[in-house]
């Protein structure tokens, strides 16, 4: 089961909003190079978990450790992003007034300081990297278009492309195929598997066909904690999971 060192480790993470526990002593371990699918009904805490990992929400208690010993609960979003954790939102969020090219340019790993960007010029190296990402995400023809004019699926890919440009160690992907056509969904699964060759990925998804297509270990969240974990076949046989999804 384990193929490398632990990349991300959540221990007893609890987050409550006005008494409602969005996460309830959630514990989770992710290996280096692993791809993990997270499923669970609405309100199970999937998005809150991502918020906690990326520093948007501070947990009331619990530990979130990245890599060997980096405590993520002490860092804010930009710091966590700079450590190499990229996040794709449920709703595609790209910089709409900018062209596809510029979106990728801004996402490229590099100096994020104002002093640098004020005088920065595009280097040949940057151009080469953007070209290659355009290739991967099949957006080469769209490079000059404003991202606001892209189709829904193209925006999703652009956002994944921006994540790649960040060169993260870990990608958090929230419902990447929501609203995509079947063909696009398939291509996305291929794309994610491709990405997983070099980086760890956590995918939150409702679409079971897509999860099956990914063919990875699945974690089922329910009411803020892990209900079941294992292969898709294993968890779909789990009586607890069946009860949550079908029972009552």
């Amino acid at each position, binding site marked *: 089961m384990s193929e490398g060192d632990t990349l991300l480790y959540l221990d007893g993470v609890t987050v409550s909003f006005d008494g409602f526990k969005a996460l309830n002593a959630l514990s989770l371990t992710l290996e280096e190079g692993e791809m993990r699918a997270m499923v669970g009904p609405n309100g199970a805490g999937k998005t809150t978990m991502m918020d906690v990992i990326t520093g948007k929400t501070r947990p009331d208690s619990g530990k979130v450790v990245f890599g060997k010993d980096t405590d993520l609960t002490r860092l804010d979003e930009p710091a966590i992003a700079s450590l190499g954790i990229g996040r794709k939102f449920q709703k595609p969020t790209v910089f709409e007034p900018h062209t596809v090219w*510029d979106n990728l340019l801004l996402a490229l790993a590099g100096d994020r300081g*104002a002093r640098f*960007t*004020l005088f920065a010029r595009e280097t040949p190296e940057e151009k080469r990297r953007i070209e290659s990402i355009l290739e991967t995400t099949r957006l080469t023809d769209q490079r000059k278009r*404003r991202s*606001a004019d892209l189709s829904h699926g193209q925006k999703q890919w652009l956002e994944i492309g921006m994540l790649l440009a960040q060169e993260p160690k870990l990608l958090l992907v929230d419902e990447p195929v929501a609203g995509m056509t079947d063909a696009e969904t398939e291509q996305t699964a291929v794309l994610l598997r491709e990405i997983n060759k070099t980086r760890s990925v956590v995918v939150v998804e409702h679409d079971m066909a897509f999860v099956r297509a990914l063919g990875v270990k699945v974690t089922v969240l329910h009411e803020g904690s892990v209900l079941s974990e294992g292969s898709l076949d294993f968890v779909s046989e789990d009586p607890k999971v069946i009860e949550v999804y079908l029972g009552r």
Partner: protein
Amino acid sequence: MKLDRTSFITLIAVMGAALVLALLNQMTAAASAAHVPTYVIALAGKYLCFAMLALAVDLVWGFAGILSLGHAAFFALGGYAMGMYLMRQIGTRGVYGNPNLPDFMVFLGWKALPWYWTGFEWFGFAILMAMLVPAVLAGVFGWLAFRSRVTGVYLSIITQALTYALLLAFFRNDMGFGGNNGMTDFKDILGFNVQADSTRSALLVISAVVLCGQFLLARFVVDSRFGKILIAVRDTESRTRFLGYRPESYKLVVWVLSAIMAGIGGALYVPQVGIINPSEFAPGNSIEAVIWVAVGGRGTLVGAILGAIIVNFGKTWFTGALPEVWLYALGAMFIFVTLFLPRGVMGLVRTSAPKEPEPETPAVAAAHEVTG
């Protein structure tokens, strides 16, 4: 840096108009039909200073999404710095003839110049302060506000409270800035009589040069990668954070830069209108500056300059011809522009002028919907 056609035309127009007005004032006889009276020169200079304020507002509102309702405070602070220099130049020509103390201090029975007036007898120091004081205030305020992620209308309202607090403060006599009456009756600037036609013409041309310089600087900033990030912050702040950018430092940089630009505008404004008083801090002034930008077209820079000149020209005309109607017109302008002209005059120019060489691509058309 590449300049687009509209920017180029704007620069030429501003410089050209200022030079022509100044020359017509200086080179023609008062009786001549081509003569431009000095009050027009002063008025034009005032408009250009307002254009600097508008440019500053557009930089933060149009490109960083910070709607400042207190930008006139930076303008006024710059103005006060210049006013202090001009007061020190009066010397013994004041009513009380005191070589060191401005009249209002003598009137208040003060014996010595307060420490914070030190150095204002030097022009260079005053100019430095006209930039530094707004910069420091903006820096402290922005550092607090942006770091704690105060955004949108909350930020707008506290900027308004900021200028309101300064308004109250400058009304106080014991602040040492002339209280209610402010500072006026200036005599010299760098040894030239501020009332003289030639000084006025020179100030107009200097204002035009400074405005063009500010415009080029703003253009450089928004066209840089920094500017692209700023726009990204404006539209999707949280996304930039997850990409590893710190929106607060980007906002702070542009906010301080904008405050400095406004301060310079204020410093040039004071010798041309001959007075600075606390009413410049009134919240209404800051909001008027925002409407200049809205009228001209937010986020275009050129529109800010255009809007400041159009609205202020309208104001001058209305208050002369139909003073009652001006507030109706101003109020209606706020409503009309926000409801029907979200892209301002620049939006009109771009959509209704088919002669423009670049064809209307779907991308541009969509931009009208998105950024409106």
